């Protein structure tokens, strides 16, 4: 086999061998197909989080106290086995690792493709590639930047002078009532839905989940998930702007702490 290879003279490779050969199974990540597997698997984890996050946020429509209780329930998860917030932090660390691997694999695979690709000066047409598949390298960074803003805005409270820790209803209605912020959320979540539309379908191919009898269902699943995420996530900025979610600047958490909440006990 080695003889056959040396007899074929080829153009120089566009990618050099990795300098350090890692032991199994880490060496799988050193190959492009392996990186695509990692991208697909981390994509499933991130997609799972996004779906659960969107559904959980629907508690906003129940009211300030209910979404506060939902947030507290997340912190209380697993308290029979572990100290409070530990299980939540374990899940958060898992998500951070998945997100880091998703970005790193995307970055290195993109570099590889850019090195291998040559543009057509005469122009080219696309037949199968759609808007979503061709904008993955744009929607990805948009989502990354948005995620940073989203955490800084609603978790760390950097941009919100009225931020009250642990009162999602108050913070969401204060933040999203600003028109530029609402527009930012709408644009970023549309990018997220577009990313999910291609990512969900692509994941099946990358992970080798392919059975001609059921393959048409993969597109339906991708469109369905992207649609559900889009409708759910866009509803928050729209309904805040419409005044459906509005606490008139009062914070239920501050009132609970000061014992001034009206007739609410739980």
């Amino acid at each position, binding site marked *: 086999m080695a003889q056959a290879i040396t007899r074929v003279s080829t153009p120089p490779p566009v990618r050099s061998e990795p300098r350090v050969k890692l032991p199994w199974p880490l060496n799988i990540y050193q190959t492009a197909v392996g990186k695509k597997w990692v991208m697909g698997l981390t994509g499933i984890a991130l997609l799972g989080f996004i779906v659960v996050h969107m559904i959980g946020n629907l508690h906003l429509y129940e009211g300030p106290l209910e979404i506060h209780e939902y947030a507290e329930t997340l912190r209380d998860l697993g308290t029979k086995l572990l100290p409070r917030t530990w299980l939540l932090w374990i899940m958060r660390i898992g998500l951070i690792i998945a997100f880091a691997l998703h970005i790193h694999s995307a970055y290195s695979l993109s570099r590889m493709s850019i090195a291998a690709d*040559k543009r057509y000066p005469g122009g080219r047409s696309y037949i199968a590639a759609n808007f979503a598949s061709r904008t993955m390298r744009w929607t990805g960074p948009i989502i990354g930047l948005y995620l940073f803003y989203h955490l800084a805005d609603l978790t760390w409270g950097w941009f919100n002078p009225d931020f009250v820790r642990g009162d999602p209803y108050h913070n969401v209605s204060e933040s999203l009532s600003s028109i530029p912020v609402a527009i930012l959320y709408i644009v970023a979540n549309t990018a997220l839905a577009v990313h999910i539309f291609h990512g969900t379908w692509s994941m099946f191919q990358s992970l080798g989940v392919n059975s001609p009898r059921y393959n048409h269902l993969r597109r339906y699943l991708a469109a369905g998930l992207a649609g559900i995420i889009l409708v759910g996530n866009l509803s928050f900025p729209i309904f805040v702007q419409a005044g459906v979610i509005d606490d008139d600047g009062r914070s239920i958490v501050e009132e609970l702490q000061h014992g001034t909440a009206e007739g609410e006990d739980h």
Partner: protein
Amino acid sequence: MSSEINLTLKVWRQPGPLAEGRFVTYEASGISTDASFLEMLDIVNERLIEMGDEPIVFESDCREGICGTCGLMINGQAHGPQKGTATCQLHMRSFNDGDHIVIEPWRATSFPVLRDLAVDRRAMDAIIAAGGYISVNTGAAPDANLTPVPKETADTAFDAAACIGCGACVAACPNSAAQLFTAAKVQHLNLLPQGQAQRWARTEAMVETMEEFFGSCTNHGECEEACPKEIPIDFIAWTNRDYIKAKVKNRKLAG
């Protein structure tokens, strides 16, 4: 009914691998709609030779769509506008009188232009050399049907084996990935009993050789549309699956 059409060609001319290339416009008048695309180029070349110009260099061999030698980017589409058709089987009846046609070579870093429309596709040979074969004892031909193969398996393997190695999948891919070519060459052997002995070694070696020269698949599906043999991207998914299995199995065997 045959008729004659007049075309304006914008052709990529490049004197050699290291020379600068550029587009040159040619008028191709009185082209029969019964001519194939390559015959049209032959006619243009004869006129160029008569005028004392250098003819346009392009590759062709069988001209019946089975050898994979020809391949041009025609108006931004690999092998032109007709689905499932190699450039040699594309006929001028697919074009209208007065059309402008842009003709470019395949473009990828590992497909350097040799001259005009001819590119060096030896990177694909390296993928085949890495494992695109089966090792068998020579001698008398074995009896027919000595190794039973289910009909469905044979059909699917044959769909993959239809690959003529033209490189249109790489040319059409926005990432210049050779995933469809490699997957077809891996799967037509991996699906059959004769290919099992070297299945895992083959998959690992061919995929890793591919990754040295070509980009990474992002599942656009352009290759499937460009393929003159209409090989589906399902083979890519199966090869991705086989590759991870190979990584596990080859390690166990090596240990």
